[in-house]
């Protein structure tokens, strides 16, 4: 009943790099997100992004569900990641959350 048009998104996920850099210490556009709807794992830069106004809406390349929403108001960044079950962010090898010297048995 509800056919989608062939018109594609205006942007890919790289357009979200600016506002995301105001929130995260690493470049999230290279992270991998898993869609809560269909399970597809996508690099954020490959999302189909609509906007930029009233906000950026990043959709799953597999099922078009909303994965990421970003609104930049004059004094805040609003971020919705509820469409993702996980976000995998690569970090430099050898950097662990718990220092080896602590032994992890305290």
């Amino acid at each position: 009943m509800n056919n989608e048009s062939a018109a594609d998104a205006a942007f890919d996920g790289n357009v979200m790099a600016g506002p995301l850099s105001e929130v995260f210490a690493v470049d999230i556009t290279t992270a991998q997100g898993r869609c809560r709807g269909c399970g597809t794992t996508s690099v954020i830069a490959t999302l189909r992004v609509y906007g930029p106004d009233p906000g950026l809406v990043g959709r799953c390349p597999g099922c078009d569900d909303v994965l990421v929403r970003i609104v930049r108001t004059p004094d805040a960044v609003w971020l919705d990641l509820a469409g993702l079950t996980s976000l995998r962010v690569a970090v430099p090898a050898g950097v662990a959350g718990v220092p080896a010297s602590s032994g992890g048995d305290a």
Partner: protein
Amino acid sequence: MTVTRGFHGRRRDSDARLPPGQHLTPDFPVLSAGPTPLVPRDDWELIVATEDGTRHGWTWAELMALPSEDVTVDIHCVTSWSKLDTDWRGVSLDTVLADVDTAADFAMVHSHGGYTTNLPLEDLLDGRAWIAYEYDGDELAPEHGGPARLLVPHLYLWKSAKWVREIELMLDDAPGFWEQLGYHDYGDPWREQRYQGD
């Protein structure tokens, strides 16, 4: 010389009709949060769901059988453009909701494609809101919300949900798609209610 006088006259009139922070555009910009749904009129249905679960439905033919109104209104987008004297045809929500028994104070409008927006029910009544299906004498184009969209011109245009499919009547307010993410719950352009806290 008369051209200059006329220009200033129109400009003063336009300025008085421009809410704060807005500018005029002769275009009709398209803002979308997703792919444009293409909804065949044969499959189209409008649902009004009340707080006790009662569902009222209108097919496209049933909507067309209701009395329509031609309205000329100014529209104001939260992204700061305004467009004056836009011509629409549609069915007043007063007509649609005339026989709907409800104690609700709020409405959540649902669109094909998943978009939602919330409004006080009283803002849909008293000749202030329509289910619009023609723009400027033509069928409403899909990119502008066709086959039919909500038209609530006294609020910012994100409240005038494109591709409307259901009006859910609610006892308590709840935020819609943009209202969840920093935009104002009410969105009065004359009070410049763009974001939460405005």
